[in-house]
């Protein structure tokens, strides 16, 4: 049974991500953020839950849908918004945009806008750990679409062959842009596909952060016993369009769940229900929301006011 404090901490993390993204939704129509954004609403509990279990020094790799991962690992709201606004003080000095957020200082080594691309890079980080005789962890997040890329099999094969301490985390929203799983999968199921590889594997729904934590801890226990990679499959509902800030149920390629179903698919709402049961006080949550709101507003104001990179920055950081 998690404590109220632990639960509050997790809730704060999920709420920070959610409120940052709601702010993006608010300002985006004004064309202030000139960068494609792939919002993580619905997905937050997966990175928050997995990262919650990992020890310090873990190396993380992600995708272009990386806001939740970035904000959870860095808590860097200012650098996040500055980057989205293309400013020199951004996390990538305005050269990354939303899709390539990195923070190696906290272990977020790389994210990529090309599906599947960080998979082998993460395997390389895990190999480095093994090479150096360390016992550190590597986690790589990817969408279900990445499993259709050739490099998925190559990466799994190498990691399993070498018995690397790497956790593959599949964030499965059942969609690749707009294409549903049934139009893309010539295999029976995600778990069937991983069966052939010599690794630990588990699957669960990903909207309940505690379920994510439970599955992650369990697979880590196995991985600590025998040196094999782990594969975690979490399903989630993508609340918004693939890229952009709007809902897109009206286009008819997928069905809108009922309001009640949507509540059950929303990691923030699921967790707030659990908090109430643990004796969470609404006033505390209100205080938390207000603090976060103030911080986000301040960060956005800072990002708006911050200078763009100087022209001379165009060709810096190309080589060292």
């Amino acid at each position: 049974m998690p404590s109220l404090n632990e639960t509050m901490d997790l809730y704060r993390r999920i709420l920070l991500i959610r409120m940052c993204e709601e702010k993006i939704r608010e300002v985006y129509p004004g064309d202030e953020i000139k960068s494609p954004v792939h919002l993580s609403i619905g997905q937050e509990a997966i990175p928050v839950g997995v990262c919650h279990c990992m020890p310090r020094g873990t190396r993380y790799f992600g995708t272009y849908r990386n806001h939740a991962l970035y904000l959870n690992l860095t808590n860097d709201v200012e650098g996040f918004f500055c980057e989205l606004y293309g400013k020199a003080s951004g996390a990538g000095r305005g050269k990354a945009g939303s899709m390539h957020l990195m923070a190696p200082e906290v272990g977020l080594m790389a994210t990529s806008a090309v599906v599947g691309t960080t998979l082998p890079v993460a395997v390389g980080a895990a190999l480095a750990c093994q090479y150096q005789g360390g016992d550190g962890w590597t986690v790589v997040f990817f969408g279900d679409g990445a499993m259709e890329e050739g490099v998925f099999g190559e990466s799994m094969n190498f990691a399993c062959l070498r018995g690397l301490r790497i956790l593959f985390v599949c964030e499965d929203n059942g969609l690749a842009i707009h294409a549903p799983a049934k139009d893309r999968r010539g295999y029976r199921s995600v778990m069937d596909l991983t069966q052939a590889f010599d690794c630990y594997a588990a699957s669960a729904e990903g909207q309940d952060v505690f379920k994510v934590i439970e599955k992650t801890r369990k697979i880590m226990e196995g991985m600590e016993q025998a040196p094999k990679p782990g594969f975690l499959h979490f399903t989630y509902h993508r609340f918004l369009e693939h890229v952009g800030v709007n809902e897109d149920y009206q286009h008819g390629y997928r069905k809108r769940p009922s309001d009640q179903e949507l509540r059950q698919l929303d990691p923030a709402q699921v967790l707030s229900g659990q908090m109430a049961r643990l004796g969470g006080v609404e006033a505390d949550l209100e205080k938390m929301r207000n603090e976060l709101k103030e911080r986000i507003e301040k960060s956005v104001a800072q990002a708006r006011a911050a200078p763009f990179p100087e022209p001379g920055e165009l060709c810096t950081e190309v080589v060292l």
Partner: protein
Amino acid sequence: MTRTITYREALNLAMRREMEADEDVFVYGLDVPDHKRIFGSTKGLVEQFGLNRCFGAPLSEDALTGIGIGAALSGLRPILTHIRTDFMLLGMNQLGNMLSCLRYMSGGKVHVPMVIRSVVGRGWGQSAQHSKSMFGIFAHFPGLRVVLPSRPQDAYSLLRAAVRDPNPVIFIEHRWLYDVEGPVDEQVTVPIGQPVVVRQGKDLTVLCVSWMNVEALKAAEVLARRGVELEVVDVRSLAPLGRDLIVESVKKTGRCLVADYDWVFAGFSAELAAVVGHDCFRELKCPVERVGFAHAPCPATRPLENLFYPSAVTLIRMAEKMLGLDETDLSGENFYSYENKFKGPF
């Protein structure tokens, strides 16, 4: 101390010295530890450093490229080895979308000190998929260094420089160069990005890439007998490109022939021609000429292959044209024939 060794031995020595100096250096790739050891270039590394630092891999060029990137991001210095440059096409996503631009996309927070060695094949029916050089394609990506040594000393010194470079380096070796012998001094360092004059001359500059140095030196030897002096410049590094020496040489001779070892159309030779055309506009006595592969995939059969590749004869004929000379009688000349050295199959 200088001693005479082959290009393959120079490559081997460079890796050995870097692996001795730095435990973070490791060599990997298909066939790296097998009994043939990438034409001998990785010979003895397993025995000296163990399979942890010199290992083979599944047939996964795409993942292997990414694995090197991840290892380099984690503080190691990987040397990925491809027995043919053609196989690098399987890793182009990692090369173009990660290796070349991770540093930039991170706002300078990371760097990727990775070396990718690859061997250009030729002869004995290598055909279209075992013969490409493609270095112009790699040089096209900002963020990558591209190095093509043609002499044992450069193979040794530039490979050491590549391993120590904080940036990604594509290091391309021509299969036929493996048997070339030359003096190598272990203490000599060669920085990446500097061309070198390998034969001085006053009449015409030949800018050479990789194997074309061998052909150009032969052409220079033949033409010297009738008093024509070619200046042969080994470009050595495509990216970064050392313009100064190239420009200085062409300003001196007033003529420039680019001897590329790749397709001419949209190739690196056009870059060199543009540099020379711009910087030596007033000094040029005739238009810059370029030679390279014929505009076709490489054929397997020898008679067509002979036509596909530029040679010393191609260079002699082109130089004569540029200098307004009659054709030299080449009967009785002994030109490079790979049957003398390289009997295949690979």
